[in-house]
């Protein structure tokens, strides 16, 4: 019994690790997608738009399975060799791509919400482009994007449960193993649900704090 509880808690760290890694990789992908979507080259940004639209229309489960089974098939077609790819890697790849598809839209929206006057104001003060972006624009982007980003993080956290289906040893997988071993599926799936709930609630608390922090100037406090 204790061993099972221990392995469930250990699996929680895998779920959190998976979510954090996917969020970080997804964030980088999202910035790339957002940049590609706003380039002047027409076909590039049409292609990016199409890619994002497709990803948003596909079930997450399908994307996870497609990456896991499809990637090794793709490698087989190209190189003629069968390579087994780690489930964790495929999970991160699938989840971060899905995350990026949504986040790139959030970032684009937030960037557009900032008036061009801010860039001009920076130039008038003699700041360089990069300085303007990092010192003036980015802090304001966070303010617009944070609530939606936080939401997307919570969605990502819940989507990580899907990777148990390709064999990653996360909370869900451990709960399944425990349920099969003890014949108490309700207890173990409930325990898994409660762990997810705790992670979600802690995230929500943190996000609330963060949003108070990024809006501190708006609210008049210093």
């Amino acid at each position, binding site marked *: 019994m204790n061993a099972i509880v221990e392995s469930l808690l250990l699996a929680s760290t895998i779920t959190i690790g998976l979510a954090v890694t996917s969020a970080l990789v997804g964030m980088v992908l999202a910035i790339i997608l957002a940049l590609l979507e706003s380039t002047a080259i027409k076909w590039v940004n049409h292609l990016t738009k199409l890619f994002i639209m*497709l990803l948003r*229309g*596909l*079930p*997450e*489960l*399908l994307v996870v*399975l*497609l990456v896991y*089974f*499809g990637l090794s*098939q*793709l490698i087989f077609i190209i190189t003629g060799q069968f390579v087994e790819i780690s489930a964790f890697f495929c999970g991160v790849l699938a989840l971060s791509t899905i995350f990026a598809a949504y986040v790139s839209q959030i970032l684009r929206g937030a960037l557009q919400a900032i008036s061009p006057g801010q860039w001009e104001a920076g130039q008038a003060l003699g700041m360089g482009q990069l300085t303007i972006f990092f010192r003036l624009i980015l802090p304001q982007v966070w303010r617009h994007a944070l609530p939606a980003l936080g939401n997307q993080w919570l969605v990502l956290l*819940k*989507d*990580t*449960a*899907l990777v*148990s*289906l390709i064999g990653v040893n996360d909370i*869900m997988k451990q*709960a*399944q193993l425990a*349920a099969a071993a003890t*014949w*108490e*599926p*309700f*207890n173990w*799936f*409930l325990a*898994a*649900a409660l762990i*997810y*709930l705790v992670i*979600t*609630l802690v995230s929500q608390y943190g996000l609330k704090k963060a949003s108070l922090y990024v809006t501190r100037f708006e609210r008049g406090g210093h």
Partner: protein
Amino acid sequence: MLAGLYGYIADLSEGVLMTLSLTFSSLLVGTIIAVIGTLLLTVKYKSVYWLVKCYLTLFTGTPLLVQIFLIYYGSGQFEWLKESRAWVLLSEPWFCAVLALSLNCGAYTTLLFHGALSSINRGQWESCQSLGMSHSQTLKVLMPYALKRAYPAYSNEVVLLLKGSSLASTITIMDIMGWSQRINAQTYDTLMVFGAAGLLYLLLNLIITVFMRLFEKRLLAFEQV
């Protein structure tokens, strides 16, 4: 290659009806739950309010997959449940999937409707009060208005539900996802099989979105003056 893809789409189309039945049954039940939930949230009783809040937290804070497993596998743990009449339903994967999907969709939609209702100008509540309307009469006036305002976000919820219905394949239901997993296991032609499944899901999503858009124009006509 295209012939292969076409063949797989034909094979998978056996699951389309199942996917649609899961989606629309859950949508119907979920929406009813959401309307009731929204009404309950406006009631003054603290205990009712907290009960609904608990339901919302539980179902929006945990993965759908856990909810499906909890209902389908979890119910088998209790002997008394197995001997009761409810077992006829609970041993049925389709029923469990629809139950989980409806409860999940109901929770998210309640948040949506409640948000729309609370975003209605305070003045409207006050004018209803000053006309001497009771709580239920006020809701009768303001609810349709709130529901219409929530509609654009609601169509998004339908797409999420369609995508979520693919999880039903994990409890042996043969929807599009279920068929594609079976055919994938038989042929190992992963890219084509899942590609075909993806095309079907995209097509369904497209049809749903177009229909919801058309309907939205009529529903929100009153705002476009």
